[in-house]
């Protein structure tokens, strides 16, 4: 039996809005093996971030998990359903078992506290250490994320650090209690490319050394290729394909995934077909078409696509929510 740290099944998240309830996630299902990296990929508005916030129990006040299970198995082997936790139960999980880093390193740190203070607060919350031991751990951790002169940088305020350094601080903060699962919500999107590569290297190295699992949220297929063991592709609030990274790239099953891959600029091709966009736009959540949500933009769509479609195993460990039974492009 495989060791799954996370098993999300049929997750539904709804938001109250002026025009009634809007379903942002429609039966999202995916799994993550311990020690591995799962990339959650999709366009803006596909529900990647909502999924991560639902996992952390940090949905905004007008949002709620309306159905589905979020099974999580921690380091101690105990399995729990995150969606059934109360506020106090969740506080014990956040930061200690599951921690998260965000897209905006510039604004994700509190400007009025030193970075050492903010990293150390995580220890204060979850571990029983005295002031001196905390400080020692903080400096060790800042050192581990390759912040030069860690001891003196611990006393710096966020505005005194660059974006890349701040993201390192965020990673140090997320990792200091040695969580089993790290959720990284577009951690490199706001950084320039060289810094991005450094941060990805750092995350991979920490994963090897500390053995955590990573749920990596991104819209960047290049980052997926570099980071992910497994990939789940999301579209309009649902997972449309999950496979190993290699299978997903080599044996693409869902037309939307194919579209995403084709919209990466290809240096070898001529200028006119270097980048092929997917026609149309993501449908608004309150006006999803019947059946497959991607059908109106799909080059392979046929009449059957108006029937409900579910995620099914098309090849070994390769799921797709499409009527096609063959790889695309066909």
């Amino acid at each position: 039996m495989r060791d799954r740290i996370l098993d999300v099944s049929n997750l539904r998240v709804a938001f109250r809005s002026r025009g009634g309830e809007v379903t942002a996630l429609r039966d999202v299902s995916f799994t993550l093996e311990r020690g591995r990296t799962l990339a959650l990929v999709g366009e803006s508005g596909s529900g990647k971030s909502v999924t991560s916030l639902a996992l952390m129990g940090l949905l905004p006040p007008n949002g709620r998990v309306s159905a589905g299970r979020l099974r999580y198995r921690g380091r101690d082997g105990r399995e729990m359903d995150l969606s059934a936790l109360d506020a106090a139960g969740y506080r014990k999980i956040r930061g200690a078992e599951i921690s998260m880093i965000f897209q905006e390193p510039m604004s994700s740190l509190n400007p009025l506290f030193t970075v050492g203070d903010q990293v150390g607060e995580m220890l204060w919350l979850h571990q029983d250490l005295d002031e001196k031991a905390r400080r020692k751990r903080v400096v060790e951790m800042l050192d581990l994320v390759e912040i030069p002169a860690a001891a003196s940088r611990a006393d710096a305020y966020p505005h005194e650090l660059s974006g890349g350094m701040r993201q390192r601080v965020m990673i140090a903060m997320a990792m200091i209690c040695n969580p089993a699962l790290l959720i990284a919500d577009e951690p490199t999107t706001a950084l320039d490319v060289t810094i991005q590569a450094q941060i990805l290297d750092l995350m991979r190295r920490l994963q090897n050394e500390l053995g955590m699992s990573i749920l990596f949220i991104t819209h960047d297929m290049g980052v997926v290729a570099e980071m992910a063991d497994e990939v789940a592709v999301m579209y309009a609030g649902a997972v449309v394909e999950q496979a190993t990274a290699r299978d997903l790239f080599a044996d693409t099953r869902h037309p939307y995934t194919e579209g995403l891959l084709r919209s990466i600029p290809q240096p070898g091709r001529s200028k006119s077909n270097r980048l092929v966009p997917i026609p149309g736009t993501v449908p608004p959540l309150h006006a999803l078409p019947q059946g497959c949500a991607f059908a109106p933009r799909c080059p392979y769509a046929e009449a059957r696509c108006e029937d409900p479609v579910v995620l099914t195993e098309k090849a070994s460990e390769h799921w797709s929510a499409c009527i096609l039974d063959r790889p695309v492009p066909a």
Partner: protein
Amino acid sequence: MPRYLLRRFVGMIVVIFLVLTIAFVIVRLAPGDPAALMLGPDATPQDVTELRERLGLDRPIFVQYVAFVAGAVQGNLGESLFFNAPVTAVLAARAEPTIFLALFSLLFALVIATPIGIYAAYRRGSTLDQTSITSAMLAASVPSFLTGLIFQRYLATELGWFPVSGYGGPDAGFFERMRHLVLPSIVLGIVNSALILRFTRASMLDILGEDYVRTARAKGMTERRVVLRHALKNAGIPIITVVGLTFALLVSGAVVTERVFNLPGLGNLVVNAVLRRDYPVIQGTLIVVAALYVLVNLATDLLYLAVDKRVKV
């Protein structure tokens, strides 16, 4: 930092000098002769001329001005025309009720307004939020003399909980004097709490939407700690500003409140001084108030520096 303080100090001197000059000019623009007013309608023109000479009011205005500024630099604000005593002594004798009134009402406003403002922002759109905004609007719109009269009627006259007015008479002990300040402080505090409440709420609403508040939640701390440690410290910066500004309202509000409750403070003093054309007292009060205001402003800015390390001097 010492350079900054020096710069600020020079700025303060300039402001106070300007206030000095404006005060001097304005009181003399007002019609009416202080000598004639002091002697009453039965005085002969000769009496008036003599008194003007004795008070130095017959000298050219520029000479009066130079004498006034020279005195002020030495801490001498002149002699009161009415009390026949140094202005500094007159002001000092009236300072206590005003200082404590300002202090208590600010304290009252803060104690009422900040927790409600924070909670209203946290529970945005809730009944408490709506109620607090409406109450704040009401508190800001009802003039303090009316609130004062209502409180005097019900809390003082009918229920007898507090003294109706005055400052307890010449022999009253400290506690008795402070007891006379309770109602005036609440009246003045209510008006100011409205502004502080709205500011606290607005600034808290801004901060609660910040990314670092989400980060704080993701660390697994209690909501209490998220709001009171991570959000409030950031929201505190605009709140400090409005508290500083409120001080201006307190000083002008004190005039009305002291009048309604018949308190022997600076507010009452300055109103009487205007009616009596007691130039030196009017000037003296304006200078003291301006100096206080400038000092509070400086304190506000220094507080910024202490709270927010991003602020550069």
